């Protein structure tokens, strides 16, 4: 389980850095979130 937690921690950091600094990733995240929330709101 300890290895799993370490992997999750690394994945969270990589995700945050990718969304913050890699062009297009934030756009993808935003479009996906918009799709989910839009369908939930109906």
């Amino acid at each position, binding site marked *: 389980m300890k290895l799993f937690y370490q992997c999750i921690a690394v994945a969270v950091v990589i*995700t945050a850095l990718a969304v913050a600094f890699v062009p297009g990733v*934030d756009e993808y995240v935003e479009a996906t979130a918009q799709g989910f929330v839009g369908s939930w709101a109906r």
Partner: protein
Amino acid sequence: MAMIKRLLTVVLCLLLIPATAVVTAAVKQRFADGPNRFFSGGPLIAGEMHAGAEPNWSFVNDIPTIEMQLVDPPRSRRIWTVEHAGKLYVWSGYMQTTVGRWWKGWPPQAERDGRAVLRIDGKRYERQLVRITSGQALDGICQAITDKYPSRTTRAGVEAGDVWLFEATPRS
């Protein structure tokens, strides 16, 4: 029981990754000059501020979305707009659903303090948002909305509070 607890922990940990992505994207947008598409943006900085006579707003009927920032709180979002009878309107739907009320935070804020800045085609306009909840004009406004967008906005929806409609009046 221990197995279920461990499974739940794994699922929560995995959900942490998309949650991190969403939160990071939302925070990043807050520091931007304006919104992108879904997350609120920061104050509208760029663009000449309109001064002078009231514009002929009919040009907005050819524009899919505009950027709108409230003065308080100074956050911006991208919204639909329509012109009808020489007046400019913005609105928010889903106001009687739980997700809609959580998602659309700006209408109650605009009702408290209607001072807003619109950015349309790169030009900024200072406006005062005034909520409209009834009146004969709603028929024409809703018709203009459904003519422009794939929307089911109706006068009954506005009067029932499902759609919050605002006229963007000149700020005096």
